[in-house]
């Protein structure tokens, strides 16, 4: 199994390590619920270096990437990030990715860990003359998330973070860190630049994702923990945090057999531009299909992946993600049901060990501040 450059730091912080998409990653340090609240109330740092980093550049890179993305990137100015889906020719989701227009004509696509090779091959195979560089082994990504994230990160970078909006990123000097960030690739970003910092994340909190070269990783990690305001957070809390927001988990909430119309969110598909899979989505719009809904339990119990969703005693779908929401202290789930019974307020049941536990469809996010 692969290890990130922060492996020793994880052990030193008391991590329990697990295998995840071929990587040995921390699932928890102090405890999942504790870490969940650390992010909701203060600030947590996640090592998300297992996710991919594909730098894509070359002739008409933006227009060519639009052809692969449900949500086009070509309108994004330098410094903007776009969340979109990559669909196969049947309209089914290959992966959900964030693509940064990182520097003029260069795009950084971040696929999920288990899909890096497939996405790289998909991009290479469906574009012409583009360079697709896998930077995954050269970069570390730390997600610094929570209400204190700006205050904490402002102490580490040269740029004024109060002017960095959500889904925007920029290169910055790393105060006290090394002054190098892939100078062979980003020749025009100025000497001394040490990181790329973006106001993105997958927790529903304010926060940043910071890319640094490998050799700065441990230094930045320890500096964050040294502030006393940040604590390390593992994959366990990453999952409960994203679930409270209703964010999709690749491989779980979509597994290669659903389209973006089924998963949503609706804004992720922009039908006014051509892209692979679009013709299938247009046909699907006029048919009956199952959609992903947000379900809250009315009774006791914990909904889990694979549990049946029932209505009037009949199975109508399956839970794809579920857990006890630490903030709401109620069972929450994502799952697929037929579109005709997918309206907010619809009464359903989740089958937990043979018992129909009452539940209803609610709006996302489950948790609002």
């Amino acid at each position: 199994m692969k290890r990130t450059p922060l492996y020793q730091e994880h052990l030193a912080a008391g991590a329990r390590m697990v295998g995840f998409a071929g990587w040995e990653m921390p699932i928890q340090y102090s405890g999942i619920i504790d870490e969940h609240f650390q992010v909701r109330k203060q600030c947590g740092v996640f090592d998300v270096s297992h996710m991919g980093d594909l730098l894509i550049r070359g002739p008409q890179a933006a227009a060519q990437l639009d052809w692969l993305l449900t949500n086009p990137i070509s309108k994004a100015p330098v410094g903007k990030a776009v969340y979109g889906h990559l669909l196969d020719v049947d309209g089914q989701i290959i992966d959900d990715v964030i693509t940064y227009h990182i520097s003029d004509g260069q795009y950084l696509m971040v696929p999920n860990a288990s899909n890096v090779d497939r996405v790289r091959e998909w991009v290479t195979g469906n574009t012409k003359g583009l360079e697709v560089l896998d930077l995954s082994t050269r970069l570390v990504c730390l997600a610094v998330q929570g209400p204190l994230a700006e205050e904490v990160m402002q102490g580490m970078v040269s740029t004024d973070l109060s002017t960095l909006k959500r889904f925007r990123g920029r290169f910055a000097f790393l105060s006290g860190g090394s002054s190098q960030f892939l100078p062979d690739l980003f020749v025009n970003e100025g000497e001394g630049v040490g990181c790329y910092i973006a106001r993105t994340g997958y927790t529903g909190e304010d926060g940043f994702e910071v890319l640094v070269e490998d050799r700065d990783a441990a230094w930045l990690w320890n500096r964050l923990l040294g502030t006393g305001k940040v604590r390390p957070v593992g994959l366990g809390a990453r999952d409960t945090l994203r679930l409270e927001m209703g964010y999709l988990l690749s491989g779980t909430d979509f597994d290669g057999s659903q389209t973006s119309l089924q998963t949503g969110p609706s804004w992720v598909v922009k039908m006014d531009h051509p892209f692979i899979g679009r013709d299938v989505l247009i046909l699907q719009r006029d048919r009956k299909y199952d959609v992903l809904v947000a379900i809250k339990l009315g009774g006791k119990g914990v909904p889990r992946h694979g549990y049946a969703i029932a209505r009037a005693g009949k199975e109508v779908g399956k839970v794809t993600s579920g857990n006890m929401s630490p903030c709401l202290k109620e069972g929450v789930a994502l799952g697929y049901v037929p579109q005709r019974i997918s309206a907010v307020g619809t009464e359903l049941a989740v089958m937990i060990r043979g018992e129909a536990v009452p539940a209803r469809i609610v709006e996302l996010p489950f948790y609002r501040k």
Partner: protein
Amino acid sequence: MSEVPAELRYTKDHEWTRVEGDMATVGITDHAQGELTEFVYVQLPKEGDRLSKGDVLAIVESVKNTADVYAPVSGEVVAVNGPLDDDPSQINRSPYDNGWIARIKMSEPGELDKLMDASAYRKHIGE
């Protein structure tokens, strides 16, 4: 190292049993709670349930996982730890005391001989 009190009996599935006369108080071990992590829900048995050794006595759910708790002995459930309904994390904080799950009036006290003592259980969990 997890706590393994000397006076209790253990199963390979990580239940503990405290015997007083013909009563067996049952819970899950410190080792098990540490592996399963923070409990968020416990499905308790009902008083009056009659169980055979090995039947599902309770179901514990952590953030990560769901696990069955098996009856280490046969008998009738005469008491359940109701407060776990509201605060299942008591099992994490106090697995051998406030975190007990149920009390069983044993019908086959001879079954106790099949349970492990503390040193055997310690070996079983590799400590």
